[in-house]
């Protein structure tokens, strides 16, 4: 009997001890990614040989911003592309997504058939930086998109489409409220199962796929700051901070899920469905990489 008690106590202590360390690997990965990006963009012209072998000297010395620190990477390629940044600043003076934020606020306050509102699920709208979360009871990652649909279902409402429309509008309101409140990305890995979901997302992110045999990282880690045709590729660091995004290509607003589908297409792979474990795990990994960065959405991208 005593032996059992001791064993149980030892097990409990062991689990408490490791509770704080389920994110050890993720922290290591995040810090290394920040170190890589900051080093790469410390002085692009000087770093040509090691980081930008095929870029032109002119773009590296004149077009690129030097000495970019972590938080600035939330601007995507506009963090380093001066020309893109000035265009971005112009458009942001009168952003095309203002109406979407208003529509999102109205959706947040609109009563469901049962008389409740989204407030019953999300009392504070400034929560964009807290998702995705890992739900230990379900054993799966819950993205903001999935959480919104869960709320709808719990209140007897039909779930929404996950890529644009109402979903993007409500997320735009959440993002805007989070940005205004000065919130930061805060992703938690609180259990062994959560750490496994993170690792699955990381492996998917770095695995080459599709007929082009590209990984997400080919363009957004190693490829960051290089051009495909005339377009600069954006960094993984900060990627999830500013969604939903108004894309000129879409002529409208889209969720993270919509954007990742586009990346799958570019890799030549049949896109993974929004809400699929693949998609949610990848987003969990991506969001963790942006931990501690300011939420800065919605935003505009080409």
């Amino acid at each position, binding site marked *: 009997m005593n032996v059992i008690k001791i064993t149980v106590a030892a097990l409990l202590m062991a689990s408490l001890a490791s509770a704080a360390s389920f994110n050890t690997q993720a922290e290591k990965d995040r810090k290394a990614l920040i*170190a*890589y990006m900051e080093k790469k963009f410390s002085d692009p012209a000087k770093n040509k040989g090691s980081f930008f072998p095929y870029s032109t000297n002119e773009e590296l010395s004149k077009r690129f911003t030097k000495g970019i620190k972590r938080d600035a990477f939330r601007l995507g390629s506009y963090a380093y592309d001066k020309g893109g940044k000035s265009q971005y600043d112009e458009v942001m003076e009168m952003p095309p997504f203002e109406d979407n934020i208003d529509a999102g606020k109205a959706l947040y306050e609109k009563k469901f058939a049962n008389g409740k509102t989204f407030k019953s699920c999300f009392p504070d709208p400034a929560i964009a930086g807290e998702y995705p979360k890992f739900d230990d009871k379900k054993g799966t990652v819950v993205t903001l998109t999935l959480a919104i649909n869960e709320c709808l279902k719990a209140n007897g409402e039909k779930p929404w489409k996950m890529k644009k429309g109402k979903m993007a509008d409500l997320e735009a309101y959440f993002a805007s409220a989070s940005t205004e409140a000065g919130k930061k990305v805060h992703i938690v890995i609180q259990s062994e199962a959560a750490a496994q979901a993170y690792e699955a997302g990381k492996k998917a992110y*770095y*695995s080459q*796929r599709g007929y082009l045999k590209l*990984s997400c990282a080919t363009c957004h*880690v190693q490829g960051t700051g290089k051009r495909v045709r005339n377009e600069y590729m954006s960094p993984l660091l900060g990627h999830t901070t500013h969604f939903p995004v108004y894309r000129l290509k879409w002529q409208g607003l889209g969720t993270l899920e919509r954007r990742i589908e586009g990346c799958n297409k570019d890799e030549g*792979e049949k896109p993974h469905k929004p809400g699929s474990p693949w998609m949610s795990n990848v987003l969990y990994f991506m969001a963790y990489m942006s931990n501690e960065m300011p939420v800065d959405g919605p935003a505009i991208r080409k």
Partner: protein
Amino acid sequence: MKTYTLTSIILSVGLGLSSLSAATLADAANIDVAKVCDVKANGIEGVLKTAAEYNALAKKLGVEFKRKGVTTSQYITDTEAAVKAKAKEVTLKYTKKGKVKKHTFATTYAAWRACHFAVRAVQQVNEAETTWRLAVPGDGFKF
């Protein structure tokens, strides 16, 4: 001539085995995609059969290819239909932004592509096992 005979023996053994059981990741690691997808050597039906077997596995693994609106599955079914109809060309239809568009290929070309797409999708899963960490900063990727 000797090489040819040997190749065909290997191929027929390979095809014989795969017709008995579904394709596996281990099978994929050991095949030469150019050989099993060679329409002249294996016949168009043989190539499409290999494509179907490996694409079933690719779908299960969530790695099916898609090019310009057309999945490997559609390449296979539409090309099979063209072969049945003894058509020299296959037209692959797909929708983009609500509009119906199409690609037209020689039937042999479509079969060749379907087979390469199917086999390579699976082979890449094997390859990624040993290469993905090479791209992770702080892990296999040094900077």
